């Protein structure tokens, strides 16, 4: 055990090794380490972000589904209402048409009956005149007695 120049040899070696480690070893290994730590923390963060987004998407999906269902139901309802409306409209227009046809048929009928009545009346008048001629044995001057005949015809 004796101190000698070895002390300074060792000191020089020590300085050299520390310098070398500082220059060529430590930064590289630390860089890899820190990079990996960053990658891992980034990955974890991305995973939690993805999970959050997935949850949100699930919620959104439920909402959209709900809205779509509601819209579909509305559409069906609207369609039903419209169909009913159409049926109702058709019914009422058919009804009106029928009414109209009935009315015009009635008026035709009335006119025909009226005409027939007129015809019958004039025929009856003629018959009555003929009957009266036969009874009286002479001719009745139609022009003279036309007033009476018309009166009779009216009374028929």
């Amino acid at each position: 055990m004796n101190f000698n120049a070895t002390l300074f040899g060792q000191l020089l070696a020590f300085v050299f090794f520390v310098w070398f480690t500082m220059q060529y070893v430590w930064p590289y290994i630390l860089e890899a380490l820190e990079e990996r730590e960053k990658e891992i923390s980034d990955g974890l963060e991305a995973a939690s972000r993805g999970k959050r987004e997935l949850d949100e998407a699930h919620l959104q999906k439920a909402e959209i589904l709900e809205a779509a269902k509601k819209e579909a139901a509305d559409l069906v309802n609207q369609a039903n209402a419209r169909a009913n409306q159409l049926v109702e409209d058709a019914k009422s227009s058919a009804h009106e048409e029928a009414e109209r046809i009935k009315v015009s048929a009635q008026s035709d009928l009335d006119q025909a009956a009226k005409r027939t009545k007129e015809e019958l009346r004039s025929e009856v008048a003629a018959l009555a005149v003929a009957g009266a001629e036969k009874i009286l044995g002479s001719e009745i001057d139609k022009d003279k007695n036309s007033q009476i005949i018309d009166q009779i015809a009216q009374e028929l």
Partner: protein
Amino acid sequence: MASKELNSTDYIEHHLTNLTYGRCPDGTWSFAEVHGKSQVAGTEASCNISEMGFWAFQVDTLFMSVLLGMGMIFFMRRIAKNASSSKPSRVQNAVEYLVTLVRDQVQDNFTADKNPLMGPLALTIFVWVFLMNLMDLIPIDLVPWIANGFAAPNAEGGAIHYFKVLPVADINAPMGMALGVLILIHYYSIKNKGLGGFLAELTFQPYGKWMAPINVIFEIPGFYAKQLALGLRLYGNLFAGEMIFILIALFFGGFFSSVTGVLAGVAGLALNFIWAVFHILVVILQAFLFMVLTLVYLQQAHEHH
């Protein structure tokens, strides 16, 4: 085994002697002379270790620590160059575990402004000291045996007769590192507090400026003792650990010569195993402690009081 006592002493002394290259009083540079012969075969040694004084290098200490340090930085550099954040290899994972451990220590102990030196410094200290400490677990005779050309440590014939494989059991290695930390502590103290602030911290605490002489007596020894203890702690622990290994190794001395020798050898094996297992703890703990204490002291150098 007539001279067994002497052999044991020689054996221990042999294991405590560094391979030393230095300048002798006559001005020549050579390996040291131990027991009348040079530590390295075929060289002329003109003086022993203590005669060299300051200008001597423990070649084995420097060789082992630089070798381990080089292995460390080449290994680390390879990992760092191929470091990928998405597909780490197994080895990269292991190194990253280590870097994370060191980084957490830095963040826990070092609350001052982010200093980019602290991480690399702590990592280097931890890994390098750990590797150097780990040399204690190599069977203590293996490397000297190889260095001596596969001959018994004291025998003639090999090339290098002395080689200590554990650099931290040589006080120069841990103290060299502690010296580096001491320089850093002074540098950052003065940088962050100013020379005046740094000196004020040592003189005006804890009793205010009118008691400055007493404060100095309290503060200066405490300030330097902790930095000195940083190196001495590592040295002491590992030196003691190696000493125990050397003593246990004495059990194997008579393994091939007698029945009691075999029994002692078996007991030695068991002891060696137990001590090695226990020593794994010391190896890691001391490396960790050196790192943490360095961070704590440097943190104090950044703090304002």
